[in-house]
């Protein structure tokens, strides 16, 4: 464990002062499971500045009703909810209900669904709840999500669920920094590896020489270095500045989930972080995954799961011993962790397990075809080299690749290759059964997308009418992010046709996982069984891979479509117009 993580963990998370009183007169307040829940049909939420102490130093957060995380909202499927959101900040604000199917005007994205909530104003959202499960809400304005404007949504189902449990808890993971988000973003622009303290060193190379011999170690290094790529580039922002939280508690104070021996506990896992993927496990216990992004899946027993930014998973655990279990959520790049205790007594805390080693990207993560490489077909990947523009030949080859698995008519979209892109995955593969960088062959059963099957049949869903292919592109050196090499500011909206069934294929031309979130409509993920497409709202696209899903375009209006990593979002973003 890094010293810094430890030091930060020592200080207790506390809310020092409330700068305003929250208006919750009409909301029933119950304190189930040690977290602040609001339930009913009408909710009053206030976004305001709050002084907090999460790291040992005080900092000013932006909060919902004065707390981090904001209150958990409990809704009932089939009912209409009304939410009055008051903005007491000096800047425009908003709340987006993540994964909720609702009219475009209620979606809460400034500039797309409404004008935002001006300082001092109150906006009233109202919509019918047409789904159930675990979701969350967050600000869609500036970087307010990073500084605390987020909370959980639990929607009680109309019908009995196909599994049982004794108790349920929300486990909301997030990342907190005392640095201002604008400072973090500026630093990333000035020096994109500012927060990366797991870089290769001269010693790493010497170790590799010992391990593989000089010529193999040298040629491996040569391949990465000639492309100006870094195999330790896992997360942009790390535990150097982040303290990882579970329901607002740091690893020292620990959030506590109480159980009696033999009880079945439902954990509603939500990744509300700005930039952090978490690998979650409870050493000593199997987790049975029963829902993904709010929707029931066929139960799968796993030891560990990776939860991308903005995803949710519902798992059921059944502790058999009277001891404290660690709910351990290490960040993907292993610079720190969020942790809580699953314990029979609030005074009995679990000890954290050892973190896994720092992961390294492989050639697979760069979208390279290992077979082609062996055949001396070249490196299988084209980098922008020197002053040369990417040449026509490669472009052609690339387009051909996409044509190969075409089953549906493809609508061509504008594409640009220049300053915005540093690499191109030449042989992107579907890697649904790949647990991902840092989780491969770790001896544990790790959940993959291939394990996810819709609980209900999707056999009757319409076949796609057409397909679009979107490339996730970026320039890590300059810290620029885009889709198809075109950033949001320069892009035309994507046009979806009302009533169509659209297939979307993503190809990740970067070395980072991107959690892609389409607002307003479900993303029906192809995981290998077309009769059980998984209903999701956020899809992780692994580095160098491709992934496809289907969207029933049934919601008119304008919608946001973007990478949910907060500092990628402004560029890796599209407006979708359904007409």
């Amino acid at each position, binding site marked *: 464990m890094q010293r810094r993580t430890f030091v930060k963990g020592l200080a207790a998370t506390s809310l020092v002062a409330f700068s305003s009183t929250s208006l919750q007169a009409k909301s029933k307040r119950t304190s189930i499971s040690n977290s602040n829940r609001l339930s009913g049909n009408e909710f009053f939420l206030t976004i305001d500045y709050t002084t907090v102490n999460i790291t040992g130093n005080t900092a000013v957060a932006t909060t919902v009703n004065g707390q981090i995380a904001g209150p958990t909202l409990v809704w009932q499927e089939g009912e209409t909810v009304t939410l009055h959101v008051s903005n007491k900040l000096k800047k425009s604000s908003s709340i987006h209900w993540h994964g909720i199917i609702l009219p475009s005007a209620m979606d809460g994205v400034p500039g797309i669904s409404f004008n935002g909530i001006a300082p001092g104003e109150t906006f009233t959202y109202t919509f019918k709840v047409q789904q159930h499960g675990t979701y969350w809400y967050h600000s869609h304005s*500036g970087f307010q999500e990073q500084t605390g404007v987020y909370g959980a949504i639990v929607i009680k189902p109309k019908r009995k669920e196909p599994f049982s449990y004794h108790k349920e808890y929300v486990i909301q993971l997030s990342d907190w920094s005392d640095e201002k988000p*604008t400072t973090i*973003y*500026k*630093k990333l*622009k*000035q*020096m994109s590896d*500012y927060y990366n*303290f*797991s*870089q*290769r*060193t*001269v*010693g790493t190379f010497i170790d590799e020489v010992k391990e593989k011999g000089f010529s193999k170690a040298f040629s491996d290094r*040569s391949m990465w*270095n*000639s*492309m*100006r790529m870094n195999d330790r580039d896992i997360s942009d922002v790390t535990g150097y500045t982040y303290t990882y939280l579970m329901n607002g508690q740091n690893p020292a104070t620990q959030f506590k989930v109480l159980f009696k021996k033999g009880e079945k506990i439902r954990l509603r896992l939500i990744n509300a972080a700005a930039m952090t993927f978490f690998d979650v496990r409870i050493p000593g216990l199997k987790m049975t995954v029963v829902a993904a992004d709010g929707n029931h899946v066929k139960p799968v027993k796993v030891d560990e799961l990776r939860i991308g930014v903005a995803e949710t998973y519902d798992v059921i655990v059944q502790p058999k011993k009277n001891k404290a279990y660690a709910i351990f959520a290490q960040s993907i790049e292993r610079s720190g962790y969020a942790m809580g205790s699953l314990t029979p007594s609030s005074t009995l805390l679990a000890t954290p397990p050892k973190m896994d080693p720092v992961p390294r990207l492989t050639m697979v993560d760069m979208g390279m075809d290992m077979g082609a490489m062996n055949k001396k077909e070249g490196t299988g990947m084209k*980098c*922008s*080299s*020197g*002053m*040369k*523009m990417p040449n026509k030949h490669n472009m052609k080859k690339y387009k051909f690749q996409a044509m190969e698995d075409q089953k549906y008519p493809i609508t061509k979209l504008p594409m640009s290759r*220049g*300053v*915005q*892109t*540093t690499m191109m995955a030449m042989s992107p593969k579907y890697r649904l059964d790949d647990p991902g960088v840092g989780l491969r062959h770790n001896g544990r059963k790790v959940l993959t997308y291939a394990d996810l099957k819709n609980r209900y049949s999707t056999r009757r869903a319409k076949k796609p009418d057409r397909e679009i292919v979107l490339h996730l592109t970026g*320039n890590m*050196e*300059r810290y*620029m*992010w885009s889709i198809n090499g075109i*950033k*949001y*500011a*320069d892009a035309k909206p994507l046009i979806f046709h009302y009533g169509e069934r659209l297939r979307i294929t993503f190809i990740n031309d970067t070395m980072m996982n991107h959690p892609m979130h389409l607002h307003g409509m479900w993303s029906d993920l192809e995981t290998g069984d077309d009769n059980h497409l998984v209903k999701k709202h956020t899809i992780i696209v692994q580095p160098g891979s491709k992934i496809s899903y289907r969207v029933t375009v049934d919601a008119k209006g304008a919608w946001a479509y973007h990478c949910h990593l907060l500092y990628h979002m*402004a*560029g890796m973003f599209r407006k979708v117009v359904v007409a």
Partner: protein
Amino acid sequence: MRRIKNHCKKSLLSLVTLIALGQNLHAAGADDPMRTMFLMDKFEILNNDENTRVWEGSFYIGYDIDKLYLYSEGEATSDGLETSQNELVYSRAIAAFWDIQAGIAYDKNDDASKTWAEIAIAGLAPYFFETRAALLFNSDGNVGLRLDAEYEALITQKLILTPSLEADFYTKDDPKMHLGSGLSAIEAGLRLRYEFVREFAPYIGVTWEKTFANTRDYNPVNETNLMVGVRFWF
């Protein structure tokens, strides 16, 4: 060459736009706010008889694609001699890892000075070499080429070894400025810094500097010096 010319024209136009629009460009996208960076890459004292003080720094203001750069490097000795090279260039990203730059350079050699027109390319070459090549033209018809390359080798996450190499060439003699035609000077350095934080790193190192041909006649240099210094940025 025509492409470079076009680029220069475009660059100058963009520079004017950049200055004229100022903050308005901010509205172009939240992904690309206007920003500045000041980097004092070298700020050091050599342990020679003159206790030569050396600096090399840069400042930019701008956006992802368009920036205005100010470069300055030079040295001052305890007996009051001062030489420096200063550049003000507009810089535009034209490829994933490369910027093209155009502007003016101003050299100072004690009381003498010289102004140049300049174009340069700067960026990250394969194998992570930070490089810059500048072509300079002045009213005497002299053409200069200045090459810079630097590499960072991590001993640990915070202890960083930086070899660097600089070479200058000219087409004509300029006795006042101590510049001779052909290969004029080479400077090689090796610096070991410790980053207490990213922004602040003291270092120790060694430099070797040598002048050649006519430059050597004007200003004979062939010395190796140890140094201490500090690197900082914000």
